[in-house]
């Protein structure tokens, strides 16, 4: 007798997502995915589906949504080209450790391995760029596999997972019974801190005179921003951040000393090699942060705290490697620590910072004459929005300047492609951020090059009336590459110069308002009009063509060889 309680696999997927509190999906339909989309049609009231214009956009949007909302992102794509279009977005989420559940459709299981129409081996393709993946070939597996996917994606060091569902598994039926997962025996996402680790950390800190705290993305992922603040308040240990750690501490905090790395701030980079103790909190010593590893942190003992054991002693050997959630580490050490940083060490940061202000920041943010500099626009927007907008960037000079000159106040307000450096990330990520924070001002800073990589998403911005504020810095160049060509290839500008469309006109074609700014005097008015506009708005700003981003640690150089000008 037919069991009347049975539902299809397609419906089970949606019900499972709803059990995990998901109400938003970014995706794009196709043949193999049709059973699932048919169920979306009937579940439209409880689940909002955002139809993008290219699957890469769905992946980036889902990731940004996850970053601003604190919920995992969910992304759908059909088999074959739909699924392969996701790869860049999956890799991006992987390198930046963002929990996104990717669900791809697959040809019927009978046809697997036969090069059937729109069959691609998504399990193999996505293996190196996912935390976990699984191919579902029968409907009964669905609830358990989705429960596992959520558990793996969101716990420990978060990351993207992919579930590939054959069409017959979507159409097959099952008795639906969903149970979320609490623990899996092969996987330990919450390593226990040993008392001994805390004791040792305290004594290393106690014997230090020049400590430096490096806060990474782990702080944001662990939700440990208030602990970071308390620890810094209490100890006055200068706190620097990585690019992905930006917004983990408010930039007006008295002991915030700037960003690390290739285009970071002068003081924390130079003083990395003066520090006698480095506390690395939820960061992974990326090569863009360390410069030449052999000459990195030359005088310092290192305490490295990370939830991913494989990161400990991977790039930099530490004196004390603590495998732990950074939040637990702070919770345990804060009540016991009494250390006070010597004032003269903090003073060294202030002095170097003043040099950078004088030689770089003033020129970038208050140029006075000449062509517009992206820095001045970012700085002014930071003031106009009181540092409280969600800032999304593309990749290149626009990204580095947005990281440098917006004054981040609140956690998770810089959404940027750190690990993969994906041009084209910006516009779709801005959409996702706006969907996740509908009441926040979301500002996208992008270059003319990167914007054109995913420009079709203007269609999505229009369709859902997402009020993102798009600021294109048009230097008619692939700016960051051009900068390297100027510095290292004697200005041989190979294939970096490109004509651009009339961006406001293009926006208009998509039903989005915008304007062009060519002259400095027009900036404040244009920014006000953009911010006051209720819907999406595009500002194209013609900027100095050959402006460079400095300070800079040249490739192969040490952190303390950072230069303020060419």
């Amino acid at each position, binding site marked *: 007798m037919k069991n009347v309680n049975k539902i299809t696999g397609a419906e089970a997927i949606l019900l499972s997502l709803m059990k995990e509190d998901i109400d938003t999906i970014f995706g794009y339909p196709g043949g193999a995915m049709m059973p699932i989309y048919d169920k979306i049609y009937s579940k439209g009231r409880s689940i909002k589906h955002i139809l993008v214009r290219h699957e890469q956009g769905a992946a980036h949007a889902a990731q940004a949504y996850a970053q601003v909302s604190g919920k995992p992102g969910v992304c759908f794509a059909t088999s074959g080209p739909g699924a392969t279009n996701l790869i860049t977005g999956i890799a991006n989420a992987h390198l930046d450790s963002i929990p996104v559940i990717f669900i791809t459709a697959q040809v019927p299981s009978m046809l697997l391995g036969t090069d059937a129409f729109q069959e691609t081996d998504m*399990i*193999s393709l996505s*293996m*190196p760029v996912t*935390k*976990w*993946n*699984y*191919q579902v070939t029968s409907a009964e597996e669905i609830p358990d596999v989705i*429960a596992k996917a959520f558990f*793996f994606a969101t716990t420990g060091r978060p990351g993207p997972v992919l579930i590939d569902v054959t069409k017959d598994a979507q159409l097959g039926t099952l008795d639906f*019974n*969903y*149970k*979320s*997962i*609490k*623990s*899996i*025996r*092969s*996987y330990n996402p919450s390593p226990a801190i040993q008392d001994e680790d805390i004791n040792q950390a305290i004594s290393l800190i106690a014997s230090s005179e020049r400590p430096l705290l490096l806060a990474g993305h782990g702080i944001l992922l662990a939700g440990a921003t208030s602990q970071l603040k308390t620890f810094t308040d209490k100890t006055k240990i200068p706190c620097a951040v990585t690019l992905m750690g930006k917004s983990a501490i408010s930039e007006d905090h008295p002991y915030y000393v700037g960003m690390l790395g290739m285009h970071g701030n002068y003081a924390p980079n130079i003083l990395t090699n003066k520090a006698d103790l480095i506390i690395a909190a939820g960061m992974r010593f990326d090569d863009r942060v360390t410069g030449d590893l052999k000459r990195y942190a030359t005088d310092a003992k290192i305490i490295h705290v990370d939830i*991913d*054991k*494989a990161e*400990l*002693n*991977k790039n930099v050997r530490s004196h004390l490697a603590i495998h732990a959630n950074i939040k637990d580490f702070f919770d345990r050490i804060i009540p016991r620590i009494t250390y006070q940083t010597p004032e003269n060490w903090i003073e060294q940061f202030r002095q170097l910072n003043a040099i950078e202000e004088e030689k770089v920041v003033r020129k970038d943010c208050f140029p006075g004459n000449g062509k517009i500099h992206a820095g001045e626009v970012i700085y002014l927007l930071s003031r106009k929005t009181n540092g409280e907008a969600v800032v999304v960037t593309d990749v290149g000079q626009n990204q580095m300047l947005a990281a440098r000159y917006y004054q981040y106040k609140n956690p998770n307000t810089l959404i940027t492609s750190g690990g993969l450096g994906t041009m084209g990330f910006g516009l779709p990520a801005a959409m996702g951020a706006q969907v996740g924070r509908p009441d926040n001002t979301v500002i996208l800073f992008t270059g003319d090059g990167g914007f054109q990589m995913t420009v079709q998403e203007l269609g999505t911005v229009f369709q859902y009336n997402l009020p993102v504020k798009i600021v294109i810095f048009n230097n008619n160049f692939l700016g960051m590459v051009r900068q390297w060509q100027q510095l290292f290839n004697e200005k041989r500008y190979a294939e970096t110069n490109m004509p651009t469309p009339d961006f406001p006109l293009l926006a208009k074609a998509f039903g989005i308002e915008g304007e062009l700014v060519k002259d400095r005097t027009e900036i404040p008015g244009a920014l006000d009009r953009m911010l006051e506009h209720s819907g999406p708005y595009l500002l194209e700003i013609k900027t100095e063509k050959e402006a460079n981003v400095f300070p800079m640690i040249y490739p192969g150089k040490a952190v303390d060889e950072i230069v303020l000008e060419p």
Partner: protein
Amino acid sequence: MKNTYTITAFSENHIGLLNRITIVFTRRHINIESLTVSSTEVKGIHRFTIVVEDTEEQVVKVVNQVEKLPEVLRAEWYLNDEIIYREIALYKIPIDVAIDKNIEQIMREFNAHMVDIQDGFVIIENTGHVEDTEKLYEVLKPYGILQFVRSGRISISKQKKELSTYLNELPVNEYVKE
């Protein structure tokens, strides 16, 4: 300094895990000298035994990256003197050669066994370290070897605590009750 290391990993049985594990090695250009996958005494759990030549530093990093895989229960690495290890070798030789009395003596010396006799040939089996099975190969070669095959390494650690005890103590997966 490079050395021979034996890495063992225990995992949940799952299609594709072999791929995930080898990716960790290939990404770092570490050549896998031998790889053996087999089921363990605990149902559903598989053992990977991987032999590599590399530095301890690299080996520690890959072991951490293997252990990080959500479906790997545990990964460890050993130097040769920390384990008992074996490879098994099979030699196919013509039957008329096998009747030669020298062969009987060679097999006794090497502690080898004849495991099968077929029309025209016999199969000899020998277990030991690569050097042992290699040596028997050299000794038998003049008599004419029709085919030779050797397995990957299997190993058992000299540690007190048996892994099987550890595996049996593993908790079951827990679910949040509805």
